[in-house]
């Protein structure tokens, strides 16, 4: 539901004059620069983030009229980003399938932390690549399970299960350290 209105803002702006289109693109730049930077790094830590974001925004500009408001705008822009990063790196799906947890502070360090947000921050750092992206799309971008399934090319049931597991893991960490 988050950013539901932006679908129509982008859709209508794409059919308006160039100044309105440019304003819409500026809105996209303001809203999506940081999330895109995170997503690009998660896809390819070696990628030149600024260059990729510029390319993504230029593509959005050139194809804004093709945007279908039946889909969330964020799904569209993340799909463009993913395809662009893959095109640059020649990545294939299998290379992204690994879900190994990243190295981070261990549980003893987490116990020392006082705020729940700090603990959650550590928890997110320790999630595997796929879980990390699922958590990003679900909790940061507010995408639906269907949208996440399309973006990550996995069944909706798997996405729901992973989201449930992420929530459960966090609850366990917060409950277990109190």
């Amino acid at each position: 539901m988050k950013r539901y209105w932006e679908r129509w803002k982008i859709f209508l702006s794409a059919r308006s004059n160039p100044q309105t289109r440019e304003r819409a693109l500026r809105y996209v730049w303001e809203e999506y620069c940081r999330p895109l930077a995170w997503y690009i790094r998660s896809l390819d830590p070696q990628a030149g983030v600024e260059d990729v974001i510029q390319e993504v925004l230029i593509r959005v500009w050139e194809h804004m009229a093709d945007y279908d408001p039946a889909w969330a705008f964020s799904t569209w822009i993340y799909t463009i980003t993913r395809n662009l990063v893959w095109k640059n790196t020649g990545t294939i799906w299998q290379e992204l399938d690994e879900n190994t947890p990243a190295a981070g502070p261990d549980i003893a360090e987490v116990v020392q932390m006082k705020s729940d947000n700090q603990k959650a921050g550590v928890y997110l750092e320790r999630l595997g690549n796929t879980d990390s992206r699922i958590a990003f799309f679900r909790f940061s971008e507010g995408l639906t399970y269907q949208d996440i399934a399309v973006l990550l090319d996995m069944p909706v049931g798997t996405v729901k299960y992973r989201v449930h597991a992420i929530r459960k893991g966090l609850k366990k960490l917060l409950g277990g350290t109190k």
Partner: protein
Amino acid sequence: MKSDRILQDTWREKLQSVSAGPAWESVSERLTPQGRATWRTWMVNGLVYLAVVVLTAGLFVAAPRESSVARLWVKVLSRTPAPGDEALLQKSIPYMYKRREL
């Protein structure tokens, strides 16, 4: 849910520490005039809508002129009522009944 709220807040904080990306100026200077194509799209759409409206109006105005009932309606709609209209209306009633029987 509490865990969802915590995760949302944590993501917000996490994204704040991510680099801000390219400056707007460097993006805007790369924008091509291709965006102006939407003006053309808009104008083409407008012309199509206009053509549809004109054709529909034309059908409503021109096609009924074939029948006397339609002529009556055109007269009724196009000028203020006159004594002759009533007679013309009476004349058209049997025709309307005939249409129903068909």
